[in-house]
């Protein structure tokens, strides 16, 4: 069973982050749109709590969000 954790998924721009938030909310997954610094500069993404990272990433990828 995958570990449930709190983690940030980098999605690039605000639009992708908001799109991800909308999708995750529809699936009942709690998340917050937030921004953090990366070597290239700021990046928008979602901070997810209490879920398995791999399943959230798979869900976003299946819906073509963030190019991940």
């Amino acid at each position, binding site marked *: 069973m995958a570990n449930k954790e709190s983690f940030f998924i980098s999605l690039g*721009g605000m639009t992708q982050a908001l799109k991800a938030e909308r999708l995750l909310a529809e699936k009942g997954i709690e998340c917050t749109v937030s921004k953090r610094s990366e070597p290239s*500069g*700021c990046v928008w993404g979602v901070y997810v709590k209490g879920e398995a990272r791999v399943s959230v990433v798979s869900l976003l990828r299946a819906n073509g969000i963030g190019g991940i």
Partner: protein
Amino acid sequence: MIYMDNGATSYPKPEAVTLAVKRALDGCIANPGRASHREASRTAMAVFRVRERAADFVNTEPEYISFTHNATMALNVALFGTLRKGDRVLTTPLEHNSVLRPLYRMEREGRITLDFLDVSTYDENVLCKDLLERLEGDEKPTVVVMTHTSNVLGLRLPVERVGAICKDKNVFFVVDGSQGLGSSRIDVEACGIDILCTSGHKGLYGITGSGFMALSRKCRRKPEPLIFGGTGIASREKGMPDGYPERLEAGTLGVVGIESLGAGLEYVTSVGCDAIAEKTKSLRKILTEGLSVIPGVRVYAPESDSVSIVLFNIEGRQCDETASLLDGFDIASRGGLHCSPLAHSFLNTDGAVRLSVSHFNTEAECQTVLSAISHITRGL
């Protein structure tokens, strides 16, 4: 005043649009996509909702909607950002200068060759046959750029049929939807459109300074940016970010205009594009038929699928003089070439008077306009 210059920008705006502007000024106070404080997040969410609404209206994804200041800006990005050296571009004589001038510029630079489809009969079968014949020739077009609805005649061009041909023959297809959206709901997937550009302040009832470009999900050429600058992300990178819409949205967005566009889209959706088209067609019919029986008036009116616009001249008067005389009757019309010089060459006019209605106009207003024009022809 009787306002019949909706082809330039629509008036009045729905009350919901006016309220949205006020709401945006009071409630969308921060810069979206930059900071992460509450106000910035609220503004970003408001912009995102309009992006979703626009995407739904034309059937694409929210990230493929890039907000612009007008259709001209969208078309410049769509054309300069995608056309390549050696492209053979086909367009129509009914295009606005927002299409023609970018194409002329690239033709002059030797980047593209440019030719025009046959619209002389107003018959879509003739236009489509012309396109198909050119696609069978040695110099096959690689790009078609076409208006959805002429801003001079109100004539709707067969975008869906042309799009199907372009899709089948792998021809890149760009559409100017400025005069069509609102009285039509353009589905970029169903119409085989790669990029759709539009203003937000005409049939979509947003305020001036609003517009957008929509890429289809299957867009064959994604535009390179023309405007470079801050996006709030990847700031250490020397180039623009790879992801859309940020790649095409450098600088602070026009949030108030975007909010007005969102309210306009909601309004148009609630009224229904078909209902809007039906109303403007009926008003156009009243004007066309009324003008055609006034001695000394020449009406330029194709009987094909046309909406909203009536073009005419009064014998012995310059078009701008007629428009000015109408202004004296408190009627707003527009004389001149309407930024579409080839359309007027095609009609063999040196300019004409355009009456362009919205669904807010009334039959009584049309009768008042006809009466005023009758007075003018009699020199009263």
